[in-house]
């Protein structure tokens, strides 16, 4: 196919590029600022990447270092500070622990339940499915207050349990997996029974492997939601930095620090946003499918 010049196409591109500039603006600001020295940030100079001229670090000077000792490269300084001013590694690790635990537990709970709802006849099955559908209507964020009180009564606030427990059951996960399992032919399950598998073996050896695409999509959905979640950690984690998730850590960075810390703060923001953005760029189709899963209803 050859593309001839067309006014219509050009116009569409112009509009879309303008949109893209606005969409990308904060990403540009974030990365560009994270590369600049405080002076460049204050004056709005330095172009995209900053001049990367050496500058004297303020904290170093106040601690009595000589000017020569305190000279640093802006980009290095910003990113080093992101890790030294706050336990960034710890935050990232917490983020990984929390998101992976949530996903693992959600799978462990949702897959057997979804299999039972899709393929087994048991007393109360219709009522059970109605319960799942009803729970789909309740946003967990909305009931954060009573959940927080219940956890507080159990003495569980400020713990990994508080970060993870409320998310262990995902009505959406159950619903999604059930819809997928409905499409698995009954014959396959009967064949597995004839081959000597019990119901548990059928779930883990037959249903789960065939459901990998759906499960992967759900994994992306779940991990993105919980890596980025700020509201819930903000409520149940108070003060104990060793339990902070990445957004909490970044928020603390912002709360504590004054104007000339924009460089390191933007470096932190970049560090927190980068894992998912890179993963997204590498596997766009899967991510878009996963995130828009809720559209499958």
């Amino acid at each position, binding site marked *: *196919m050859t593309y001839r010049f067309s006014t219509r196409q050009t116009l*569409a*591109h112009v509009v*879309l590029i303008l*949109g893209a500039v606005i*969409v990308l*603006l*904060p990403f540009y*600001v*974030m990365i560009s600022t994270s590369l600049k020295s405080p002076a460049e*940030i204050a004056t*709005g100079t330095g172009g995209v990447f900053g001049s990367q001229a050496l500058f004297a670090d303020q904290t170093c000077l106040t601690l009595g270092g000589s000017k020569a000792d305190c000279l640093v490269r802006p980009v290095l300084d910003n990113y080093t500070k992101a890790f030294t001013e706050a336990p960034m590694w710890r935050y990232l690790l917490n983020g990984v622990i929390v998101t992976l635990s949530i996903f693992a537990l959600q799978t462990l709970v949702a897959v*057997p*339940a979804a299999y*039972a709802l899709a393929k*087994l*006849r*048991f*007393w109360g099955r219709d009522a*059970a499915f109605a319960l*799942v559908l009803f*729970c789909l*209507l*309740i*946003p967990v964020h*909305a*009931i*954060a*207050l*009573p959940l*927080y*009180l*219940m956890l*507080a009564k159990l003495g569980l606030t400020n713990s990994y349990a508080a970060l993870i*427990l*409320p998310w*262990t*059951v995902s*009505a959406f996960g*159950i619903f999604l997996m059930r819809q997928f399992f409905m499409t698995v032919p009954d014959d396959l399950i009967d064949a597995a*029974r004839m081959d000597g598998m019990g119901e548990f073996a059928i779930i883990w050896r037959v249903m789960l492997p065939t459901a990998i695409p759906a499960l992967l999509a759900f994994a992306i959905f779940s991990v993105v939601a919980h890596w*980025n979640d*700020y*509201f819930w950690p903000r*409520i149940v984690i108070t003060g104990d930095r060793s339990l902070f998730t990445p957004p909490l850590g*970044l*928020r603390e960075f*912002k709360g504590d620090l004054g104007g000339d810390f924009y460089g390191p*703060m933007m470096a932190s*923001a970049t560090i927190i*946003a980068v894992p*998912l*953005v890179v993963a*997204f760029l590498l596997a*766009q189709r899967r*991510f878009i499918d996963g*995130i*828009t899963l809720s*559209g499958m*209803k």
Partner: protein
Amino acid sequence: MSDAASLSHAVPKQQRIARPERRQARAGIVLFAPAFVLLILILIVPVVVAGILSMTDYTLGRPSIDWVGLRNYVDIFTGSSYRKMIVATVLYVVLVVPASVFLGLGAALLIRSLNVGQSFYKTIYFLPVMASLLAMAIVWEFALHPTLGIVNRTLAMGCGTPLEWWPWFARGCAEGFPLWLGDRDYALYTLAFIGVWQSFGFNMVLYLAGLTSVPSDLYGAASMDGVKSGWERFRLITWPMLGPTTVFVVTITMIRSFQVFDTVEALTHGGPAKSTYVMIYAIYEKGIAQNLVGLGAAITILFLAFVMLISVAQRRFVERKVHYQ
């Protein structure tokens, strides 16, 4: 192969005697039980707890608890700060939903019409959906910083150009451009802008999926029937065929914008002058930060009622299928 038979007979097997239906029913209950217990504990019980606490003056850590009836609800509907809460929440939703939905649809239609670069734009527009909203809110705050921010700096570059014909712009040049997040006249609109910026890519993807399911035969049939203009085509085919997608997109955007919290908490704390005091933030501030549990619970119930109403309306709408099918 001959020793296979002998082997399988040699292994003593535990023989399980039960009707297969009975066995399945038992397995079904066992397998669903954990999910059942957790759904009840994590989702249903808190709703009930919130309902009960909303009629008390309970605070965490105090042993006594008094029944106050509907007083918390009365406070909400009479207190001026709570009136501002409702106004801020509704205004935010009313600003974000149409903008996000129409930008999503517009982007989807434009992208679909392209010969080249479809996935390029799709990727870019979807980026904000992936990135941590809190992190991006902080970046936006910096970009909108009255003196250091790129937005006002860029606007200032327009001073002395014909743009000053625009009175708003001229005022900006003379008295300084808005504080955005610090100005009660702009704060909510600024947050709504960030909300739209973050969410319309999601709607775009849903609309793109919806567009692929419109049978192309229909467009062929329409042009045979004499439909020529693009707008007529859109009105006759695309828009009605996207009906179910639109219902869903509107619902999910509404529910999500009702839940706006990250930007409010990080950037405005509900201010200035409670102009951005949205419900979820109110629940957090009253119920948790200030330990006024009864009030927080009442707002929770009110919030749940809103969300349920939207969802039920959506299901009704889909079931009726007035325009669709």
